């Protein structure tokens, strides 16, 4: 439930910073309301508040169902769940106070880094403990993705956050210069990869077949996709550092691996689309399935756009423009948020043993989410390509034609569109929150036993 709260908070902050880009005086001269502090609050709020809470919740739920046993160390699971919320809350406040390590998506200072590491290890103990005591031999594919998420994020977080503390609120990274940049983007890109892509694929591989009420189209393909994905993603980070002071071969390798990555990414998309293709009857009654179907289309877009933007000749123009922001949001809104909404519409009524308060509201939410995402992406494509062309335009004597200030002065119309897009998307999320509130009001969480195992599949 906290994930829903963080979704609304994180997205509200997003809309607010979008408005600040349009009307810069909205910070009212307050440092804690400035763009520089609210922007990390927005990214951390949606990634760690909304994204990770949703992943933890769905991982704990689905690992019990697929292993046919209750959670290992349930008290630790509660500790991780509550601890994580406190960590996001206090971490968010520390960002407002101006504590920052200035590493993108890893802005939180060292006390929080340590807390995150401990909680994450706790998450891993509960998850892998449950898998260890499972009652059937195979480990279902969603657990591979969730497991990959836990292991890789632990590795990335701990190594990237290595720092020497100076005071309670300030530390300095153990790495310096180009190695710092490489480690940072090894972290940054794989956080996108294993959290926002891999983790959410775990969600898809459990909840999509569940909702469609049919098995995965090709189980074999899902396993091949998992290993190919895990192997190739980890190399792709330096494509954030094209034309920079990192070795050329590192950049080229990252381009190569980014292109290879398209294959396993799309394999999972095709698997999802084919699984759902035979379940059209469910669409009549189930609003949740729609979200997942559409999220796959945006997943296809984002995972194609990413490798394309990693190509150097495209990157030369697209880098440092709003196209990048558009790309991130086609993934974050179109894929992550939509699949999570779909999963929640499936899960929340089941957890309290009631039916959804209003299917109609859920349908309205669907169209708001689609319209908001499309508008956002189109506005940022327009803004991004304009910026890319203008940054690089030369006049007759080979000097830059436009100053940074001139270019930014031409952006408000796009930023206004983006602001409207954000408002539309946010209003959908608020509708969903209301819908869930009405659904769970006066209900109690029902307690269920993990599903029984067919006798021939028992591992012992």
């Amino acid at each position, binding site marked *: 439930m906290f994930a829903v709260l963080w979704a609304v908070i994180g997205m509200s902050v997003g809309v607010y910073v979008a408005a600040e880009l349009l009307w810069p005086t909205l910070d009212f001269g307050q440092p804690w309301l400035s763009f520089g502090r609210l922007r990390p609050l927005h990214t951390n709020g949606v990634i760690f508040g909304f994204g990770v809470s949703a992943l933890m919740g769905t991982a704990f739920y689905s690992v019990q169902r697929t292993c046919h046993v209750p959670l290992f160390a349930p008290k630790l699971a509660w500790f991780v769940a509550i601890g994580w919320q406190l960590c996001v809350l206090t971490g968010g406040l520390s960002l407002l106070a101006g504590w920052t390590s200035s590493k993108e998506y890893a802005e939180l200072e060292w006390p929080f880094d340590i807390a995150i590491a401990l909680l994450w290890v706790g998450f891993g103990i509960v998850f892998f403990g449950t898998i260890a005591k499972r009652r059937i031999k195979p480990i279902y594919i969603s657990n591979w993705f969730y497991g990959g998420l836990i292991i890789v994020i632990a590795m990335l977080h701990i190594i990237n956050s290595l720092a020497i503390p100076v005071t309670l609120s300030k530390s300095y990274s153990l790495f310096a210069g180009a190695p710092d940049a490489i480690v940072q983007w090894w972290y940054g890109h794989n956080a996108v990869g294993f959290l926002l892509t891999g983790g959410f694929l775990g969600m898809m591989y459990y909840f999509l077949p569940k909702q469609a009420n049919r098995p995965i189209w090709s189980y074999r393909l899902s396993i091949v996709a998992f290993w190919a994905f895990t192997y190739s993603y980890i190399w792709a980070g330096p494509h954030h550092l094209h034309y920079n002071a990192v070795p050329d071969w590192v950049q080229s390798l990252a381009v190569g691996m980014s292109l290879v990555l398209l294959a396993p990414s799309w394999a999972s*998309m095709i698997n999802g*689309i*084919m699984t*759902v*293709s035979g379940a*059209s*009857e469910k*669409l*009549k009654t189930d609003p949740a399935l*729609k979200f997942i*179907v*559409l999220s*796959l*289309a*945006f997943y*296809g*877009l984002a995972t*194609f*756009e990413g490798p*394309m*933007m990693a*190509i150097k*000749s*495209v990157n*030369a*123009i*697209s880098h440092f423009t709003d*196209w990048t922001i558009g790309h991130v949001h086609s993934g974050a809104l179109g894929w992550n948020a939509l699949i999570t909404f779909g999963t929640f519409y499936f899960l929340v009524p089941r957890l309290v043993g009631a039916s959804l308060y209003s299917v109609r509201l859920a349908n309205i939410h669907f169209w708001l989410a689609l*319209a908001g995402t*499309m*508008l956002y992406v*189109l*506005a940022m*494509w*327009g803004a991004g*390509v*304009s910026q*890319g*062309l*203008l940054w*690089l*335009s*030369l*006049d007759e004597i*080979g000097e*830059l*034609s*436009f100053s940074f200030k*001139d*270019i930014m*002065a*031409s*952006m408000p*119309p*796009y930023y206004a*569109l983006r602001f409207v897009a954000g408002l539309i998307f946010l209003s959908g999320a608020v509708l969903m929150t209301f819908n869930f509130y009405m659904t769970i009001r006066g209900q109690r969480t029902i307690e269920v036993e993990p599903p029984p195992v067919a006798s021939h599949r028992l591992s012992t």
Partner: protein
Amino acid sequence: MKTVISSWLLFRLLFRPTEVFEELSETRPEPHSVFFKYVLWLAIIPPIFAYIGASNFGWRIGAAEPLFVPAGDLVVISMAYFFALLFVYVSTAIVAQWMAATYGARHSLGIHFALVTIIAAPLVVGSTMHLFPSIFLNVLVFIPTVMWSMYLLYKGLPIVLRISPERGMLMASALIGYLLVAAVSFLGLTVALLGRGIGPSIGV
């Protein structure tokens, strides 16, 4: 079953889309007739508009003066635009035909050509805005036209291909996935060409 679709269809589409879809579901057009009668001409309109607009008004990207591109480059860019549109057009129809098997839809290539023609029609109308190539105004015009096209796709696909609305929704979403990818490839290809020195003078 009729094999020819009348030119009126495109005009009636503006006012009575459902009627048009129902009529299409009763026809079995030949792919080459749809291609030469409609696709070719519809695909040539946006590049011509773009050429006229860019040579008269210059690209208005935002900052200060409009950007004028040498006439020779403009011809190359407009031709590239034309061929890219044709490619997206034909490939979308082929992809749709390929998907049809999965969703139990009609299989004839001609009907998929006709469907894509219908869906693309609003975009061709919207391309009138190319006559004044301000990027922002074009984005502004294309947002409602894209929504209109998507509406036609979701609404028309199940009727024309004779499948249930739910299956139609699934197939239309899969097609949206393909079209989003096609759109972004367009963008990528464009900036790659600009980087190669075709178009305005930029320092890459």
